[in-house]
């Protein structure tokens, strides 16, 4: 099937009319070019948007206590309750497949009063009491020093990690930050680290204006007792937090005597669900790219099919002679099919090469600029897509050759004799 002779037959037939071969090939080249470029552009957009998440653990949700809307076990509706620190252990124990359960308390917030003082300077910042895992759920670059660790938690150390925005507001340029003290609501914390956050989700400027302190020191310093303000919970990679969250709610509900059907008692924000929506968008985008690309490719393939029909017509005499000289119908059919597949694949490869070349150029240009604000980064196609494109090409080459090949074997050798 793939003997050298067969190939030289095919090459001879194709190179006997260069101009036509190239024009025909261009149709397929263009189709696959469009397909690859569209897919790469979609990927670029996807990369850009996902880069915007800044590496946040997307399989996460946040939950906080609201007021129960149903009376239960003698307790009225509308009462206040809070998560307790013991809830964290209970959740970890009762719900499988959870990666991180991070409780958090918080001071300040958007539009809050000035709560942080250092010397003559004061400002309003979010102050979080956190566990060390939070850095895995909400990635940030530690630009100097370190983040909260478990020794800080166990020993209730009053230490703080400041965002770049905080340092901007509270320190003079060039001033040593690590080791200095900062006063939060009248309590002094020692600065042990600084961070900068990636990504542009939420409010990028506000994200830099945060102060992280150990959860235990926070509770002690600000009289939170056992109270937990909210929790961010991340599921293991294999399972989705959206599926697990009802179990988590059930644990909370039973521990706080909340009616099992009371859905308003616990507020939550499911990042995974939001992320899935965005993912869905990109799947749709990919589908559109395939749809358009394949349609354009189809017109190229129809072009090949058309030309092969003409080629067969033109070569009636030749095919007849070949039949008279002992070519079996399968020899002829095979030759036409192979010519068509070969032409399709070669032109398709050129299209893929051209498209990836252009993608490489675009990437080179993008490398020079900061893409974090552009929602577009690293447009690319993976090898899988290239293989899909190639198999589309082989199949379509086969389809393109089918009708012409069928026409070719209908040519009787007698026709070759009757050319006078």
């Amino acid at each position, binding site marked *: 099937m793939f003997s050298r*002779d067969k190939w030289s037959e095919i090459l001879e037939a194709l190179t006997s009319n260069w101009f036509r071969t190239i024009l025909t090939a261009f149709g397929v080249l263009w189709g696959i070019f469009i397909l690859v470029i569209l897919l790469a552009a979609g990927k670029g957009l996807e990369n850009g948007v996902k880069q915007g998440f800044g590496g946040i653990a997307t399989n996460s949700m946040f939950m906080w206590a609201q007021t129960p809307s149903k009376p239960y076990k003698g307790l009225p509706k509308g009462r206040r309750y809070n998560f307790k620190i013991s809830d964290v252990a209970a959740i970890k124990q009762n719900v499988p497949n959870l990666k991180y359960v991070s409780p958090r308390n918080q001071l300040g917030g958007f539009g809050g009063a000035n709560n942080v003082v250092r010397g003559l300077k004061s400002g309003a910042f979010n102050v979080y009491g956190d566990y060390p895992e939070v850095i895995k759920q909400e990635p940030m670059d530690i630009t100097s020093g370190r983040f909260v660790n478990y020794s800080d938690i166990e020993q209730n150390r009053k230490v703080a990690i400041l965002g770049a925005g905080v340092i901007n507001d509270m320190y003079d340029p060039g001033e040593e930050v690590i080791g200095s003290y900062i006063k939060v609501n009248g309590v002094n914390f020692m600065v042990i680290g600084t961070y900068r956050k990636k990504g542009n989700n939420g409010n990028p400027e506000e994200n830099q204006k945060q102060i992280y302190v150990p959860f235990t020191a926070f509770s002690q310093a600000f009289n939170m007792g056992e109270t937990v303000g909210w929790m961010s919970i991340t599921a293991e990679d294999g399972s989705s937090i959206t599926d697990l969250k009802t179990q988590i709610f059930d644990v909370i509900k039973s521990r706080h005597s909340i009616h099992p059907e009371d859905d308003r008692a616990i507020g939550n924000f499911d990042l995974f669900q939001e992320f899935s929506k965005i993912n869905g968008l990109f799947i749709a985008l990919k589908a559109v790219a395939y749809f358009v690309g394949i349609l354009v490719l189809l017109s190229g393939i129809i072009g090949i099919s058309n030309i092969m029909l003409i080629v067969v017509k033109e070569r009636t005499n030749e095919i007849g*002679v070949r039949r008279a000289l*002992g070519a079996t119908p399968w020899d002829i059919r095979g030759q036409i099919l192979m010519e068509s597949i070969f032409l399709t694949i070669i032109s398709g490869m050129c299209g893929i090469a051209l498209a990836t070349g252009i993608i490489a150029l675009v990437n080179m240009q993008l490398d020079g600029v900061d893409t974090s604000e552009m929602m577009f980064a690293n447009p690319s196609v993976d090898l899988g897509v290239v293989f899909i494109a190639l198999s589309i090409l082989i199949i379509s080459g086969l389809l393109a050759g089918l009708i012409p090949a069928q026409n070719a074997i209908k040519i009787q050798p007698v026709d070759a*004799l009757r050319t*006078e």
Partner: protein
Amino acid sequence: MIEIKNLHKSYKMGSNSLHVLKGINFSVAEGELVSIMGSSGSGKSTLLNILGMLDEADSGTYTLDGLPIKNLNEKIAAQYRNKFLGFIFQSFNLISYKNALDNVALPLYYQGIKHKERVDIAMSYLEKVGLADWAGHLPNELSGGQKQRVAIARALASNPKVLLADEPTGALDTKTSYEVMDLIQGINDEGRTILIVTHEHDIAEMTKRIVNLKDGVIIDDSKVNQVRALSNV
């Protein structure tokens, strides 16, 4: 070599059918050089097509070298054509984008012979027809006589039992025709069976036997004194 008994063939032309061959009985021994003559419409081309397994008879038997040719499917017909028959056409029918050597080697390609061996065999046949120096030339760089010589070399390449020539000199001038006939006579002298369809009397005179066809029947079948083509060149 060839044995035909009571061969009938008719073509359907719309509602009425055209009876082309009306019972042909005909045999050719090994080493004969036979010309089939007849006016157009006499059925000579149809007869040649049936002999060449390009067409099948409606009734009657056809035996080629003891092998009954009957109910062939396309594949077997192709193999038989390749092994047993060599075709020479009026319009040469060389493949325009292949050089002389490759054209000659084509039947060998369909026999599955390896490239190197194929080239050797093809070259030896090109030498035989005196065109070894032209092996690398494309058909459109050759004269009519040279093209027909290449075609004859191609027909010989698979070492067939019978050569079938359909008006082999029809597109050539008299001098070239005689040169080609000289070549054909030479091949026949070596013992190869050859059938020539022609309507030119001088060409027919150069064979050993003339079969005259009229309206689908053989009206005359006689041996003749062969005129050597060389003496006329």
